[in-house]
């Protein structure tokens, strides 16, 4: 465990509350195999050393471009896929060491809502059976009591109780997402991974689901890891935001702070690129050149360097992996050119650096 990352991933807990979830140096590599013997020829480095904390009752958003490893992070935390390395602690318990019954009990506390409301519900089960399944597995209720609980849950997510006997295909996207939420809530979790819960929905329906998630959070004290690629949705719902790029967290801060003062050049570009629904505003977007590199063949050094527009970018960026370090109080950034940095200038020079670090805030964000 690398000391600076681990310590700083906590991003200043308010008045010393312990995190509900603490993830350190999480890694997930998918092997790339070839031929009939499935010879291993490489690896997709989907998640490459992620550290983060989620505190009770808060929403930590995880944002980034398609393929950067958000879903893999969320699933690895719940052990829906087995991590390659790293540490996951939930309420103090070592999640990776658990098995059998202990893991099942833990699953009750940690739930997930999926991105795609169309494929994540079993088409052959009624809505009632889908919501009820968790109650049975975890022996929370049976018979009449279970029926009553299902009605209560459906009511809580804004569905009429009579939908229990119908099948998922009879519902719209927004309604299906509510069914998925009712299913997750059934087992009374404390933490939910929301994997792009509104990305597939229309704007008008998006708002209904977001408001619902916020209400439920308040009522039940839920903590969310809210995965999204839409920064405007995230700003609304998140307490803190982690920005991911090619398997790494490159910036992590309070939502207000991150939107007001993004420091990592990738976050700056991302924020400037969000289309603004105001035709009178002439904006200068930061237009990046090039495409997102493949995690099967990630760049050396800073993962963002091939597209980075920072005017001080130099060879040091291609050789040194920037640590996620505190550049403002509670504001963590991985960039060796944005000051201050613990990667000293002599160190950068010996890695081929020719341009002194300097804090740059592009005009586009002014």
């Amino acid at each position, binding site marked *: 465990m690398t000391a600076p990352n681990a310590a700083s991933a906590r991003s200043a807990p308010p008045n010393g509350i312990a995190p509900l979830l603490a993830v350190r140096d999480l890694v997930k590599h998918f092997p790339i195999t070839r031929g009939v013997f499935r010879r291993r020829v490489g690896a997709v480095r989907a998640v490459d050393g992620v550290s983060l904390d989620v505190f009770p009752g808060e929403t930590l958003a995880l944002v980034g471009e398609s393929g950067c490893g958000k879903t893999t992070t969320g699933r690895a935390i719940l052990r829906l896929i087995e991590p390659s390395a790293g540490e996951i602690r939930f309420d103090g318990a070592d999640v990776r060491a658990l098995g059998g019954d202990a893991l099942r009990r833990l699953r009750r506390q940690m739930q997930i809502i999926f991105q795609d409301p169309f494929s994540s519900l079993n088409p052959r089960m009624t809505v009632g059976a889908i919501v009820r399944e968790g109650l049975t597995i975890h022996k929370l209720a049976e018979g009449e009591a279970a029926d009553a609980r299902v009605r209560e849950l459906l009511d809580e997510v804004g569905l009429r109780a009579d939908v229990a006997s119908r099948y998922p295909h009879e519902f719209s996207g927004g309604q299906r997402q509510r069914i998925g939420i009712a299913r997750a809530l059934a087992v009374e979790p404390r933490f939910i991974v929301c994997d792009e819960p509104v990305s597939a929905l229309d704007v008008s329906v*998006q708002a209904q689901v977001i408001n619902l998630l916020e209400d439920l959070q308040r009522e039940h004290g839920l903590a969310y890891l809210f995965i999204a*690629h839409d920064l405007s949705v995230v700003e609304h719902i998140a307490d803190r935001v982690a920005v991911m790029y090619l398997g790494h967290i490159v910036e992590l801060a309070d939502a207000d702070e991150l939107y007001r003062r993004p420091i990592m050049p990738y976050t700056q570009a991302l924020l400037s690129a969000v289309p603004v629904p105001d035709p009178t505003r002439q904006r200068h977007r930061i237009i990046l050149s090039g495409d997102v590199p493949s995690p099967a063949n990630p760049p050396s050094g800073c993962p963002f360097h091939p597209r980075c527009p920072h005017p001080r970018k130099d060879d040091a960026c291609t050789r040194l992996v920037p640590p996620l370090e505190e550049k403002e109080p509670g504001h963590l950034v991985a960039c060796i050119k944005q000051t201050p940095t613990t990667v000293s200038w002599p160190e950068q020079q010996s890695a081929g650096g020719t341009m002194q670090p300097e804090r740059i805030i592009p005009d586009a964000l002014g």
Partner: protein
Amino acid sequence: MTSTPAASAPLLSIRDLSTWFHTGGRSVARAVDGVSFDVMPHETVGLVGESGCGKSVTSLSILRLIERPGRIEPGSRIDFEGRDLLSLDDRAIRAIRGNRISMIFQEPMTSLNPVFTVGDQIAEVARVHSTASRREAWERAVDMLQQVGVPAPADRAREYPHQLSGGLRQRAMIAMALMMHPALLIADEPTTALDVTIQAQILELLAELQTRVGMSILLITHDLGVIAESATRVLVMYAGQIVEEAPVRTLFDAAHHPYTEGLLSAMPRLGDRRERLTVIPGTVPSPTQWPAGCRFHDRCAYAWDRCRTDAPPLYQIGAGHVSRCHLAAEPARRRAPAFAAAAPAS
């Protein structure tokens, strides 16, 4: 009805377009149900609306790409460069497709053939629509890839679609669409599958190419932010009809139709720290049974008796601004706020 700054003649003129799906039984899906609008030379018209409102069926109708059980109903009219597209035979329409009118789709894999190299497919467009030799066509394809910002275009041209990233595939498709310098580009959700930084690159590219080539763009999207940044005029569709049309600034400053109003306020925006997002209650109705009267009435906060029985016509609101809402006739019934940040509705 569709009012645009006069002066020049429209490039594309659509009147009473109805495209219905006769899916058997007695149910008919009236996906597009009496749509009229114009696209002027060199302008970008935005077409917005929720999933299923008929945007794609409208654009496919223009290119006559509707297949059974779908049918463009009698009485519909689509004029392009002075010709009636609906009366052309198959050969004549094929000569227009990919040439004078071309289209880019949300998912590039649906229009790129996986078994041919990207370069071959783009070159093929020139071979079909001009007398270019195999070699000339290939060179133009590589040049086009370069123009749309594909790095190392000569190498990329030899690759197959699956070897390219999403952003590069989208650019390859744009290159293919622009090969013949079309007068009209129909872009159906061209950036929805892409990330915002790549989306910004593509929108910038389209704007630049438009100035350079001088084409018109019909830009279909559900993202009002994209509309605000790219379009000069906006059409809002709901339940198979156009419910509002306005110059882009008017739409964002003074939307008239309650649906447009709802869309604008439901959208989360950067810099917006409202406690609750505004909600349009309910869901989009089904095209097999549009509600009587105003099709939006069961989700509308202003609806009164008249809305439930009389289908509103497109009322003229101002210059180039029309709205399919009875509030135009009875403005006193509009009382704020229309869309409360209601408790989760079912």
